[in-house]
């Protein structure tokens, strides 16, 4: 799992590249756990190159969602592949998290 960060005014974009499983999800957890991430208004997650997600990866997002909401930080996913989006749907997480088709949609939120 490779995570690339891009920061603009009040918005941090994390681009995920690879597979998020029980082995690799710790890298993402470390990034999302950093206190300074809550200084952003929005954290956008570019999932274009996220080829796979297991419960361990989902668990990382589930575990930080309330913390982000309490701090007023919007967590928005975009460019999600159909097979990855399907995993969110199976659990109903697509109704608990904000998932939009494109970067333009994510930026507009």
């Amino acid at each position, binding site marked *: 799992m490779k995570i690339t960060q891009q920061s603009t005014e009040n918005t941090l974009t994390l681009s995920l590249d690879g597979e998020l*499983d029980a082995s690799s999800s710790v890298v993402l957890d470390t990034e999302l756990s950093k206190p300074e991430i809550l200084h952003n208004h929005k954290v956008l997650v570019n999932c274009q190159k996220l080829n796979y997600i297991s*419960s*361990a990866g989902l668990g990382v997002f*589930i575990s930080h969602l309330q913390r982000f909401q309490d701090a007023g930080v919007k967590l928005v996913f975009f460019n999600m592949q159909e097979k990855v989006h399907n995993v969110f749907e199976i*659990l109903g997480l697509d109704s608990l998290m904000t998932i939009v088709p494109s970067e333009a949609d994510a930026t507009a939120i």
Partner: protein
Amino acid sequence: MEHAIRISCTRRNLKVVRDFVSDFLLRYHLTDLLVNQIVLAVDEVVANLIIHGNGEDESQFLDVRARILNKEFGIEIEDTNLTSYSPASYREPDLQEYVRIGKKGGVGMMLVNRIMDRVEFTTNGGHNLCRLYKKIG
């Protein structure tokens, strides 16, 4: 036709098992969505057995056997540790509650149960066997 693989109990082998399952399913020309679901269900069980069942002890092994019979995918995952999973004690979690308390784990078996048609866990004389089945035709 049956395919088999033996792996040691390390998280590094999760990818090995995922590739084993997706390679096995390649010849059946299934949709990406279905292949991903089956691979995910197997990955969840294997991760549980590696991390919780065997404590990531690399001297321990899992035997994984996959086959297709009558348009049904079946996979067996076997180990010999003393800790066995008890499906009877499983309760589907409340994800809104998990979000509220910031819980990191606990949704793997929810995925497995929702994806696969049948999920069986048996223990016999120190051998734990998990069988997963999914119609593919």
